């Protein structure tokens, strides 16, 4: 375990040494951004819309007292989505979709000697293959989190108003009342941390695949599992560091 963490940090150290020119990375980063961002947009929007809808319905279900105003439902929805559901649950989905794809892609390149081919050409394969993935993740994941937040609140609005749980005015009022901008800053900070963890851990697992097709599958699974564990630990640590009073 300790040895593995050490190897991971050595791997990260290799990202920034003997880099190629900026021009080389520019196109690679753009390609990764399209693959990561546009490729995940539909899934993120779909999941977060339903997350918002379910949160609204469940919050209303739990509010048994008539003394609590209805707009509190959308306040709760807002806080849950912004603080936790958008950055963290989407990170789990992101690890499953993007992380496994990164690990299996790099794993396949490893077992088919494509990574060796890069090394023999005198190219730092870690920097060339992994750095664009991490940079693209850092650029795109926060945007996906913003999309998830917006879709979640729209989902909540639709579920709440179409079923008569809450009026549109109450819902909008609840979203705006007692708004603390720090929650959004915190969510974006979390999204950068999670983006880095998922992309770097998945890349590390994929890059170090040894064996054949079976091992590529194992690396992919390990990438998702390890990334999710790292995200959950980081989630707790960040909450403890920045939110605990």
């Amino acid at each position: 375990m300790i040895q593995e963490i050490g190897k991971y940090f050595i791997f990260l150290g290799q990202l920034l040494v003997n880099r190629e020119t900026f021009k080389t990375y520019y196109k690679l980063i753009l390609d990764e951004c399209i693959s990561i961002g546009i490729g995940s947009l539909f899934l993120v929007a779909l999941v977060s819309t339903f997350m918002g809808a379910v949160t609204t319905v469940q919050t209303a279900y739990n509010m048994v007292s008539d003394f609590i105003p209805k707009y509190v439902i959308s306040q709760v929805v807002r806080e849950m989505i912004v603080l936790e559901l958008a950055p963290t649950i989407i990170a789990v989905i992101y690890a499953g979709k993007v992380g496994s794809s990164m690990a299996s892609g790099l794993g396949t390149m490893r077992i088919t000697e494509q990574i060796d081919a890069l090394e023999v050409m005198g190219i730092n394969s870690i920097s060339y293959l992994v750095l664009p993935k991490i940079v693209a993740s850092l650029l795109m994941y926060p945007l996906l989190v913003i999309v998830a937040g917006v879709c979640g609140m729209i989902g909540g609005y639709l579920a709440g108003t179409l079923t008569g749980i809450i009026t549109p005015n109450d819902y909008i009022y609840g979203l705006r009342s007692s708004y603390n901008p720090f929650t959004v800053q915190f969510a974006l900070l979390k999204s950068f941390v999670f983006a880095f963890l998922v992309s770097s851990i998945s890349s590390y697992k994929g890059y170090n695949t040894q064996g054949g097709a079976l091992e590529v599958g194992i690396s992919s699974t390990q990438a998702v599992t390890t990334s999710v564990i790292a995200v959950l630990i980081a989630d707790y640590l960040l909450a403890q560091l920045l939110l605990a009073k």
Partner: protein
Amino acid sequence: MIEIKNISKSFADKTILKNISGVFEKGKPNLLIGASGTGKSVLMKCIVGLTHPDEGQVFYDGRDFIGSDRNTIIEIRREMGMLFQGGALFDSKNVEQNVMFPLNVLTTMPWPEKRERVNFCLKRVGLENVNSKMPSEISGGMKKRVGIARAIVNTPNYLFCDEPNSGLDPQTSIVIDELIQDLSEDLDITTIVVTHDMNSVMGIGEKIMFLYKGEKLWEGNKDDITHSGVKELDDFVFANKVMNSLRNK
């Protein structure tokens, strides 16, 4: 010229290479032969630096490779071209992009010049009008040829071929062998070929190193190989039925 001195390598408790030394000459194919599992590919990986030997040194035209700093290693590597067993073509790039890749990343050559160079190399390996095909759309023999084109596109000083004939039919194997030989001579480069194909050995084996259980047992050329007097080499050479029938005649 590539010189190796006392290369040894073990994985866990298993010794793969034992104290191997030798010189690989310029302008001709140098063959590393031996049965499967004798350490040929490991030796080649030690020479190109994909595997770090436990002991020993590798010199590229007198330049120390193993003990050098990363910048020197990269400098020497940029003079290398390598054909991998499976071709190792990049799946996401078409034939032209694969061959052009070293030029794109390692040079500042203008686009028309790069295109011309790629077409020249593809023509040199007998491939034309396949520029836009993806690796999944071409045959194994074509992949090897594209791999060779990519290996020579940056005019290397050292060419490495790992089992260039594996999985190919005899006719295509001969084409690939002749191509490797012609390139070594025409470009005057140091070429090392790992093989266990006797057709290759008898066809292009101008300098041969025979490995047996991780040790170098014999060194010579194709004219001497049939009467080396080394039992293990005879067993390897005459395991081939054609070679055996020739000996019996």
